[in-house]
């Protein structure tokens, strides 16, 4: 039960999760099974931690090479999809999962299209013919439900001026402004994997939560998956600093009609209501260009690509010159229209 593999009951071939149909499917005979119908016993199984050092493929008997964070992979010998049940059980059991909706072929196509659209990327990069590897990975995330109470006191002013005789009068009216807000934020994502670049993962948002499913192991068949390195308590400070900014900007949006606002004090108290351990689908693209590896991540649900592409200085110069010339001509034309000034 530690190693979970899915064999087609009809023909005995390996089954994989199919992003298109959202079902566990068999490539050989075309059988498709609903993932929701599979039993979830594994979650309640308790394995002694650290007990397992080696996993063996049930298909070919080879040792499955994994690092300690891997929860799903493919057997490097026979290619069969393997899910490591003991790493997904007990308190390591994910609550939710967003299944892949973009297949490997679609991911490759979307990535190529994205490379072509790069305004500053070098020509050699745009062809995307040097992609070293592309891997579908379920990245562990915490989705936080939060409640934030915010209080802010500010001094705001309204300024008006008028002219009487030889003098210009400036009237500044002062207001004491107070706001209290009680806000709830639902499913704010924070990635819980040590390996993943936080900045990159933040940019992958948003996800469509309507496709959020209760976790079950067949979703992982044929993909890589990792377990979390940080629990929800450890990552709370990260999500808090993010939510605090949301609350601040919300408060600012409720203070309207003033010319200046200066805050005397701000108090934001964010509490965690709940945190859902969720696996998020990401296509990782490794691209060799100019002897260095560039890593890109693609949202496996929406196709959004993030990651720093190389920048062509020639293109930067070309854009700079182009925009500068056009702006200059526009300014000249405006000057000419209002005054004919040359």
């Amino acid at each position, binding site marked *: 039960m530690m190693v979970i593999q899915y064999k087609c009951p009809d023909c005995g071939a390996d089954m994989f999760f199919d992003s298109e149909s959202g079902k566990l499917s068999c490539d050989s005979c075309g059988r498709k099974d609903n993932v929701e119908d599979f039993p979830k016993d594994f979650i309640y199984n308790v394995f002694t931690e650290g007990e397992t050092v080696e996993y063996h493929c049930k298909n070919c008997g080879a040792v499955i090479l994994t690092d300690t964070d891997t929860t799903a992979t493919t057997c490097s010998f026979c290619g069969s999809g393997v899910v490591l049940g003991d790493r997904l059980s007990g308190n390591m059991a994910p609550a939710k999962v967003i299944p892949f909706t973009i297949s490997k072929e679609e991911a490759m196509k979307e990535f190529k299209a994205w490379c072509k659209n790069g305004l500053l990327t070098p020509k050699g990069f745009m062809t995307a013919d040097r992609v070293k590897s592309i891997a579908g990975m379920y990245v562990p995330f915490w989705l936080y439900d939060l409640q934030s109470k915010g209080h802010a006191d500010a001094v705001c002013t309204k300024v008006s001026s008028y002219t009487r005789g030889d003098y*210009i009068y400036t009237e500044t009216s*002062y207001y004491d402004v*107070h706001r209290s*807000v009680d806000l709830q934020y639902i499913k704010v994502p924070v990635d819980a994997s040590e390996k993943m670049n936080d900045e990159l993962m933040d940019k992958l948002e948003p996800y469509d939560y309507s496709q959020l499913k209760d976790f079950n192991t067949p979703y992982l068949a044929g993909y890589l998956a990792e377990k979390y390195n940080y629990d929800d308590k450890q990552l709370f400070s990260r999500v808090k600093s993010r939510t605090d900014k949301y609350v601040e900007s919300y408060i600012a949006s409720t203070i309207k009609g003033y010319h200046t606002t200066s805050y005397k004090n701000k108090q934001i108290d964010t509490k965690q209501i709940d945190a859902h351990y969720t696996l998020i689908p990401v296509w990782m693209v490794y691209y060799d260009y100019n002897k260095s590896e560039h890593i890109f991540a693609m949202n496996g649900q929406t196709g959004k690509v993030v990651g720093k592409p190389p920048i062509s200085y020639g293109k930067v110069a070309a*854009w700079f010159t182009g*925009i500068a010339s056009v702006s200059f001509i526009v300014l000249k034309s405006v000057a000419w229209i209002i*005054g004919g*000034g040359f």
Partner: protein
Amino acid sequence: MKNKLHKRNFSIMMLFVFIILIIHPVMAIEETSQKVYDFAGLLTAEEVASLESISNKYSQKRQVDIIILTTKDTQGKDVVQYMEDFYDEKGLGYDKPHGNTAILTIDLEHREVYVAGFYKGEEYLDNSRCDLIREKITPDLSGGDYYEAFQAFIKLSYQYMGVKPGVNPENILFKLWFQVLAAIIVAGFSVIAMAYNSGGRITTRGSTYMDSNNSRITNRIDNYVRTVTTKQKKPSNNSNGSGGGGGGGVSSGGHSHSGSRGSF
């Protein structure tokens, strides 16, 4: 063979172009009239020659004669009167006698300066533009740098007459440095934004995750406290005490003109 012929034809054509280019200014010089009337003797012969050539160049471009008139003796007349009489008598004008003219008059006797425009000169150098020009050249005049002042007068008149009447010619939009700087800043910011966004942008905000059904403002106070009023004297238009303004008038010959007078 054919190629050679082509080359020769081309050379001949270029020669013609050059000849025309060389002859053209010569022809232009032939039709020039006197622009500098330095009765007060403020300039050297070389300075007069140089101002004549600058003024001729710019006068032609704007189709308005740009005249400099200096005197030590106004024969008891006011500087405006003196200038009007000079205009009537000489029949100044680019297009016809008593035509388009911009004229700077220096009265050394009373240390007064008068900038005026006739016809197209009046239309394009209205009183406020004459004020601007006069204010700009007054420091040089006070300092005795007549040549610099006259040169500035010619160039400013030329510049201002290139701007539609009624528009402030000192608008920052007309400044080349501003146009260049603004273009560079726009381009710089655009390219930086492009580079910054090339790795993907954060497209979620607080509203993405806020549950609006369970979020609300629980307390909202906007208390008026007090109003503070400050007063400030309006900046006066006369920037120096040399007594400016004046405006235009009509010469005894019936020629209307704009103008701005001041002392230096």
